[in-house]
């Protein structure tokens, strides 16, 4: 695709309360560019298509190799990671906008701290006795590792939450990422000691019952986590836990 410039339209917002505007840019083309390098070009020469001076675009990024989970945004309307979005594969004009389900901080940067709070609610950790030397961990069949490892690849990008029709202020749904982490820690030989607490945290309003099985999450996940499988497994476990708790009263 030989071309000299790339057309980009970016939805911008200077503060959380400011109105949003769209700025249009034409960026010199180089082969192999991705969205983050394109944003870097704008920082180098922050001038819009009409020649008006503007400011570098604010966005979150860090690793630039789709493992830190920072640079999720809407690219041509689709929630995806900016670093792995290659310009050559995108239709122009390329539109960039912040994720729509999270509070905008500025431009393309949003506040996704809700995910980290959710991870606290389900106690997504192994409650080890201490970090001193207590000898080797429990043996674990490779088959278990094969199931746990893909879940542990979650990069907390929140794309699964962005694309979920149920993730909104009305339902307060925790979202697929947190449910997958629940499964991960419930499967761990030592982590399973908190299994019941985790399942109870996923019961009730905003819990796993809010899932409507649209399956958007599993299709959008950049790391191909088996999210719907995790949701259905945890849905079953939450139900069993609720029944148990009912009879234990």
């Amino acid at each position, binding site marked *: 695709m030989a071309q000299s410039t790339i057309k980009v339209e970016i939805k911008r917002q*200077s*503060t959380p309360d400011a109105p949003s505007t769209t700025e249009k840019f034409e960026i010199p083309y180089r082969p*192999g*560019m*991705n969205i983050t*390098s394109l944003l*870097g070009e704008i*920082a*180098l*020469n*922050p001038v819009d298509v009409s020649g008006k*001076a503007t*400011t*570098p675009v*604010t966005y*979150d990024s*860090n*690793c*630039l*190799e*789709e*493992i*830190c989970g*920072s640079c999720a945004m809407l690219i041509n309307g689709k929630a995806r990671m900016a*670093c*792995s979005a290659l310009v050559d594969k995108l239709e122009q004009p390329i539109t960039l906008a912040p994720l729509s389900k999270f509070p905008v*901080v*500025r*431009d393309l*940067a949003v506040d996704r*701290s809700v995910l*980290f709070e959710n*991870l*606290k609610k389900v*106690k*997504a*950790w*192994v409650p*080890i006795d201490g*970090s001193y*030397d*207590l*000898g*080797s*961990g429990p*043996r*674990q*069949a*490779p088959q*278990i*590792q094969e199931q*746990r*490892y893909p879940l*542990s*690849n979650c*990069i*907390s990008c929140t794309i699964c939450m962005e694309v979920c029709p149920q993730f909104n202020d009305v339902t307060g749904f925790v979202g697929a990422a947190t449910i997958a982490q629940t499964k*991960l820690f419930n499967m*761990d030989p*030592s982590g399973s000691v908190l299994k019941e607490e985790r399942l109870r945290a996923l019961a009730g309003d905003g819990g796993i019952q809010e899932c409507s099985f649209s399956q958007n999450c599993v299709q959008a996940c950049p790391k191909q986590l088996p999210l719907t499988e995790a949701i259905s497994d945890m849905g079953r476990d939450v139900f069993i836990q609720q029944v148990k708790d009912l009879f234990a009263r």
Partner: protein
Amino acid sequence: MAAATPRIIVVGGGLAGLAAVIKIAEAGGKVDLFSIVPVKRSHSVCAQGGINAAKDLKGEGDTVLKHFDDTIYGGDFLANQTPVKNMTAQGPAIIDLLDRMGVPFNRTPEGLLDFRRFGGTLYQRTAFAGATTGQQLLYALDEQVRRHESEGKVTKYEGWEFLSAVLDSKGAARGIVAMDLRTMETRTFPADAIIICTGGNGAIFGKSTNSVVCTGSAQSALYQQGAFYANGEFIQVHPTAIPGEDKLRLMSESARGEGGRVWVPRDRNDKRVARSIPEADRYYFLEERYPKYGNLVPRDIATREIFKIVYEDNMGIDGQPMVYLDLTHLPKERLHKLEGILEIYEKFVGDDPREVPMKIFPGMHYTMGGLWVDFNQQTNIPGVFAAGEADYSIHGANRLGANSLLSCIYGGFVAGPQAMAYASSLPAQEGDGGHAAELQRQKEKNGLLLNNPGTENPFKIWRELGETMTKHATIVRYNAGLEEADAKLVELLDRYRNVNLSDKSQWANTSFAFTRQLYNMIELARVIVHGARLRDESRGAHYKPDFPNRDDEKFLKTTKAAFVDGAPAISFEEVDISHIKPRPRVYTSS
């Protein structure tokens, strides 16, 4: 005496920082954890291949002493030996702990930890979780810290950037100045001790395998406040990276650990598709030149060989600066252990490395040098500790693959308790401990930047910095080039005074924060260049064709840079060689 509960600030939430936080929280201290990004997004997440520890679960007779020797030898005897000995001794216990934390390490059929071979050793000593081990380790520590956070022992300041240490009239740390990257508020935070775990400085080289936050800014700020910066000239260029527009993406050494082979066509004019070139017409130059270690020679050596193949032998693929890293012959189960990195190649290059040999070239990767620390991880500024890639200990002149994750956790595990011990015997501060003065100094810097009427674009200055440093201070170094580089750096510092921010707003102003980092990057670049200029020998990653041999008599010494009158003043310090006698470093034959 200080308050009953020591208050420690940890700056940086990668593996080293989180390891320190865990130790402090366990010991009953209060921790404030500062990080530019949410800690789960720290650069440790990019480490791929694994973590070393001599568990000897493959019946090879591996021992911690062999791990110790491999590390010292791999580092060309520049590392102080006592901390390396301690680290390798703690390796097996650290792996066990990570296993207990739930890291999904790969397993053997019996359910034990699996190990792979890495560079610079003949033993299978590297525990791994697929090819995303750093991510898995970082998450495990992140989860433990989240647990301590939920119990009120840790307060996170994510989205805050460290600007400087607050030093009292005696020069001891009493806190830090930090900037909120959203509100741009700059304020001080009190602490009895601070631990700097801010990683490497890849951004100084423009493009590297490092993450965006790896600027070295915090280390440089402390160096400008009086901390020694040691062995700055030792920069690891990783042999196998994917060249890219915005960064160089790492292609893990584990690709070779699992059997990947590096080659070029024997005939430089061979235009055939890689897979159709028969074995006899392929030049496996690492295997032929290093029959014992083969593709798993240490990184500095592999990098120089690839550089020579391309620039001296003119044998790069299609005349380009690239060689093949070939995995296409590997069985499925081996490829499966590399999924994470195969995906990266596929996504960013567009070719499937299971079918087509990857095209790679060396890229700036790791900072062996760093803040000078004693064997308790304390810098020469009382109360300022450092750990991980941000400090200089452990790796000497060249880091062995899969030793970085271990050194980060080890360093954090030492720094945390040592900072606690220091804090508990710290006398109460006099007056305000220097808080008001330091805050004023930082606010003035902010004001100067925001009101500067100049014409220089900071991102353009950064680009020139990166080009200069990559050209003169990476794989091959010449004194004339280093002098040219330093002159350029002085010019950039001068032009920096004329910098103009296109964004002067006071909300989530990323270019403002970047421009502050940029100044520190240029000052630290001078440390790298000065250290390299004065070291007239070749050792590990530092290679000067005009001085091709190691010179123990003159340079078996740690380089220490001090910031004197606005420039690096270099002195040299003896290296601790109390355990292993230095010997020639030869990987060519058995």
